[in-house]
């Protein structure tokens, strides 16, 4: 991901929104750390979002996660100024949204930031194709190009054959595909998705998540995705911002949040998450306690094994690739037979490996059957580290107990 020199596509700083007439007073109270209910009692205003800041890098899928009333829908609307912030700034490609005139803001919404809505928000009196082309129509692009772009977007979401239908003739999942196509056809850099799959059946939701993942690998959009479902957040998000009562509770990757929840609120959420699908081999990776090299002294390796109370060791070649596993019994026999250097004859294929991005659920059955821990290897077969059985058990056992349970 981008280094320090890259400007993030989206940067929010100190974003705050108060609904109500006594805005300044509420802002002052909020900055003094007064809670939401107290502010409402004293000013009648609602502190929807308070002092939220984050950056989203190009191509990142950034999830904002919170329960209803946590301010997430307000927050996403602050990002394209559909709601005017009470304080704080939003920058898109380094451009401050608050400095834009109405016309420039419309241009930005039309060309740079598209939005997908929870209840689809399609125009019921237009066809699917006209809906997909909506941003282009506003942009004033020629009819032929509108059609071409809209058809491309519809094909991308797998709905081209229904281009002449009306939205009310489609199922919910298909309608949201149109909503997605409308955002894609605009060819904007940033996609704001406000609980796009929440209104769909679980199976359809799963399909749509798959679709989004596939689209993202092809198109590399910068996405801000709102959800109240932590499993969805874990599945899709590169990073997740946990929102509670309009304030940031935790910001990090899925595994970070699962393995170190910031407070009880987050922990409560994470206890419901299927950790075997979130944690990857890379997350559980440990430095191997010892490795051996081809050509190393058999006696040294055997002594080291004894000291480590281990039965086997990974033997690496000059490129750090796994040549095989040296077992203590075979090493002892080699020593008896006078072979003093570890060579191919002492090696067995008694090990298993996995790639670092595989989730726990896919390799948990491989752990614990070999004299060496599960090896984690990169694309070139080089050993990056190991996942011992203890690490797996530790990860699975680290479920924080539900309060009151």
């Amino acid at each position, binding site marked *: 991901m981008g280094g320090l020199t890259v400007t993030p596509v989206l940067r929010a700083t100190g974003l705050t929104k108060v609904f109500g007439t006594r805005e300044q007073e509420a802002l002052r109270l909020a900055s003094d750390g007064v809670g939401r209910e107290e502010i409402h009692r004293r000013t009648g205003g609602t502190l929807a979002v308070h002092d939220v800041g984050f950056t989203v890098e190009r191509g990142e899928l950034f999830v904002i996660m919170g329960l209803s009333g946590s301010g997430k829908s307000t927050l996403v609307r602050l990002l394209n100024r559909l709601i005017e912030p009470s304080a704080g700034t939003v920058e898109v490609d380094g451009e401050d949204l608050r400095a834009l005139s109405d016309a420039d803001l419309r241009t930005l*919404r039309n060309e740079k930031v*598209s939005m997908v809505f929870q209840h689809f928000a399609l*125009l019921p009196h237009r066809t699917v194709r006209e809906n997909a082309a*909506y941003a282009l129509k506003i942009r004033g692009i020629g009819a032929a190009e509108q059609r071409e772009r809209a058809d491309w977007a519809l094909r991308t979401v797998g709905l081209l054959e229904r281009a*002449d239908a009306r939205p009310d003739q489609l199922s919910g999942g298909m309608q949201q595909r149109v909503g997605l196509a409308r955002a894609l056809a605009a060819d904007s850099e940033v996609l704001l998705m406000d609980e796009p799959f929440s209104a769909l059946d679980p199976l359809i939701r799963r399909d749509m998540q798959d679709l989004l993942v596939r689209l993202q690998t092809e198109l590399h959009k910068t996405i801000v995705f709102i959800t109240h479902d932590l499993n969805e957040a874990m599945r899709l998000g590169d990073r997740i911002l946990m929102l509670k009562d309009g304030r940031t509770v935790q910001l990090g990757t899925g595994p970070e949040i699962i393995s170190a929840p910031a407070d009880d609120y987050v922990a409560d959420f994470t206890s419901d998450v299927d950790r075997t699908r979130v944690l990857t081999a890379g997350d559980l990776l440990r430095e191997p306690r010892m490795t051996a090299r081809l050509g190393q002294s058999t006696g040294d390796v055997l002594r080291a094994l004894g000291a480590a109370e281990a039965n086997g060791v990974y033997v690496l070649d000059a490129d750090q690739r796994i040549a095989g596993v040296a077992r203590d019994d075979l090493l002892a026999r080699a020593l008896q037979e006078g072979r003093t250097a570890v060579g191919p004859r002492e090696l067995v294929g008694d090990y298993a490996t996995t790639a670092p991005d595989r989730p726990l659920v896919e390799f948990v059955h491989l752990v614990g059957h070999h004299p060496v821990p599960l090896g984690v290897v990169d694309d070139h077969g080089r050993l990056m580290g190991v996942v011992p059985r203890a690490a797996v058990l530790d990860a699975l056992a680290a479920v924080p107990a539900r309060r009151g349970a």
Partner: protein
Amino acid sequence: MPDIPLGRWVADLIDWLLATVPWLFDAVSAVMQVLVDGLTEVLATAPPVVWIAVFTLVALVVRGPGLALYTVLAFLLVVSLELWVETMQTLALVLVAAVIATAIGVPIGILAARNHAVSVVARPVLDSMQTTPVFVYLIPAVFFFGVGVVPGVVATILFAIPPGVRLTELGIRQVDREVVEAAHAFGARPGQILREVQLPLALPSIMAGVNQVIMLALSMVVTAGLLGAAGLGAVVVRAVTQLDVASGFEGGLAVVLLAIFLDRLTAGFGQPTALSRLLRARTRRSARPVGTEAPAPRSKEPVGA
């Protein structure tokens, strides 16, 4: 209690207006007169059979055979009652008044939906307009325009405006907020949102308003017969003053027949007409290959398919 001379003030205001801008009332009067006379001429001079055929055809296209049958029978009955000319005079009055009332009411309704201040001001005005007794409308009309057709039309317009405003405002406010928000989110200008999203989606409600405008106009036109406007109103007023039950009944019946025709015809506005349903069904059939009437199954390979 001090005696507030409210009535005097209003009378003074009317005097002042008459003295200051007489040309305005003359111009309004002339335009109305021309519109009503012209339309009456067109409707009443052609033989009844021509217009009955036209009305029937319109009813058939807009609503279907049921209303077409009603139209033929109702207007033939009107002819046999020898009230054809009066009915056409009334129709002309109603149409002119309804068109003008709509032209005034719908834009006010749009403004009220978009601007809170307009809405706040408009609401009590509309309330008082709708609760004011019908005859009160006749008084300023007479002051400004004397007697005859024009004050009748003006009173009718004023009386018929409120539902146009109310149902337009309601219709626009009822448009799905998320859809309007989506239009904003894709950078549409306020004018584009009004034209391409709010008005089309509010159309059924606006058309219900137009329907109400027409019905109110028709009910007022009869009252306007008191001012000497020709038509069924005059027939009814004459019957009342002469205690002529027979012609009173016939005049009243003609009003009812006309009202039912106009109501059924315009109630369909904003909904798909018989003709458009037919056309749409045909295009759908030709656009789709045979055997794919059921919704297509969800595509399993959406990306790059």
